[in-house]
């Protein structure tokens, strides 16, 4: 598969050269492949957000390099191109909405790209439709629920037609419906629109919906692979301060009770299928 993002020995320091210098990223080598849905997880302070902010050149590497479709973020002239390729959605929707009307906010990105008026209108309509937000187009964001605001933020990025959307803990402050809707949108954009998704999250229930996961600890990548493969390494998962998905907890418990449960179960559907096979 084709690499959309590739880092090489990526290292980053906060407050470099001062007494409080912190090494936030420590020679990270990783890649994001075109079309995949990747999750990055790890404790607060493990370096997830710092890494993600390198993806669209909000931060520049201290040492090492990062290439976005072959473009280096260290090269000033590539930045506007890189930001067209990689879109970014943040944790708190209140702090990323610029305008006081939904459709105007979604137009903000395309306007910055200097697109012709007709094209902007088309893209705004398309983004509203793709995220089922047509009914809210004239609303001021402060009348929306947190979940709806986050959907507007995603639509605002989508309207820039990026190849990849990076979501930085987008569900941390949402209620159950908001969380479900944001996750459904992310999955739909990946499957139907072919957009590469990078999801930073603390929820294992979200991680299991991704094709691949990275676990970070102390600024470095500790584990990498499909959720099935990663959750097999139980000692490392615990030391990274993570949880196990509910389905794998139940599957593991049943295995210990002596039932024949197939290995590597991480999703509820798989556990149900497996138990139904036992039953018949």
């Amino acid at each position, binding site marked *: 598969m084709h690499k959309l993002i590739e880092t090489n020995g990526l290292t980053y320091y906060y407050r470099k050269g001062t007494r409080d210098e912190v090494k936030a990223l420590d020679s990270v080598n990783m890649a994001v492949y075109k079309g995949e849905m990747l999750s990055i997880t790890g404790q607060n302070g493990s370096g997830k957000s710092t890494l993600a*902010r390198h993806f*669209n050149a*909000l931060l520049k590497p201290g040492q090492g390099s990062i290439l976005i479709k072959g473009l280096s973020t260290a090269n000033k002239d590539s930045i*506007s191109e890189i*930001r*067209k390729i990689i*879109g*970014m959605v*943040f944790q*708190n929707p*209140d*702090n*990323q909405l*610029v*305008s*006081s*009307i939904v*459709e*105007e906010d979604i*137009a*903000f*990105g*395309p*306007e*910055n*790209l*200097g*697109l*012709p*008026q007709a094209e*902007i*209108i088309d893209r*705004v309509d398309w983004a509203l439709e793709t995220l089922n937000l047509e009914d809210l187009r004239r609303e*001021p964001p*402060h009348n929306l629920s947190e979940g709806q605001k986050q959907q507007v933020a995603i639509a*605002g*990025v989508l309207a*820039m037609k990026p190849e990849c959307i990076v979501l930085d803990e987008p569900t941390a402050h949402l209620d159950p419906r908001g969380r479900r809707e944001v996750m459904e949108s992310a999955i739909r954009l990946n499957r139907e629109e072919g957009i590469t998704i990078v999801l930073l999250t603390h929820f294992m229930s979200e991680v299991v919906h991704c094709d691949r996961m990275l676990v970070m600890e102390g600024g470095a990548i500790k584990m990498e692979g499909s959720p099935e493969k990663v959750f097999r390494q139980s000692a490392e998962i615990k030391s990274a301060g993570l949880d196990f998905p509910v389905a794998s907890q139940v599957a593991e418990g049943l295995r210990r009770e002596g039932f024949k449960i197939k290995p590597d179960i991480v999703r509820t559907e798989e556990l149900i299928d497996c138990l139904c096979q036992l039953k018949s």
Partner: protein
Amino acid sequence: MELTKNITLGVYLPGKSSIHNLDPRTKIITATIMIVLLLISRSYAAFALSALFVGFLITLSGVPAGYAMRGLKPMLPVLAIMWVFQLFLFKAPDTTIYFHWWIFEATAAGLHMGNLIILRVLFLFTVTTFLTLTTSVVSLTDGLESLLKPLRAIGIPSQELVMTLVIALRFVLILAEELEKIIKAQMARGVAFDRGNFIQKTRKIFPVFLPLFIGAFKRAEELIVAMDARSYTGGKGRTKMKTLHMGRVDLEAAAAMIVYGGLLIYIIIFTEPMI
């Protein structure tokens, strides 16, 4: 505990009246002319005419008059103090003296000066509040941006200035929310903001500032990063989804403005000023 309740300046009250439908540029120009005329008005007749005109506009817009004036409430004590100062301290030759005590003199000139200042502040406030009540931030800034565009030619970054204004207006509400949260958190730990005299209350406000500024800076930084991530690099090369169009209502508004302005200028020139 509700801080945002009495803020009316910068609040938009959606509606479908012809005032709401005016091109924002018409509204901005009209409001500016009105304010300038009121600042040079010096007679009661001029203010009476303006009160009629503003009253007519408010009725037409469907904004409850009480609400339009609500934001004045917190300003009343300051206005009263200003009035008293003018009444006693403004001196003019050849004026009636109503009252005399020690070095204080309440004179007719002082009374008129006090009234004049209060009327001006009142109208200034009402006109600007009315403008924001009937114009959304988005169209207000579109209007300003369009009006200020010629300034780019002489090197003034008008689009960036307007964007700064948009963000600043957004932050008024964010700051009020943040402030409310912090005050509540401190009340929950035993600070009685609702008790004590003016000085005691003021002293209690100090520990609020540190978390307020930290919170505001944090949010501002997040907003800047988010704008950056969406390719905002200033006004250059930016296009707009919506363009403004003047219509029939704007012509009618211009006509109304000419009639009012003409009458007012007539009054300003030919009637006796109060001072």
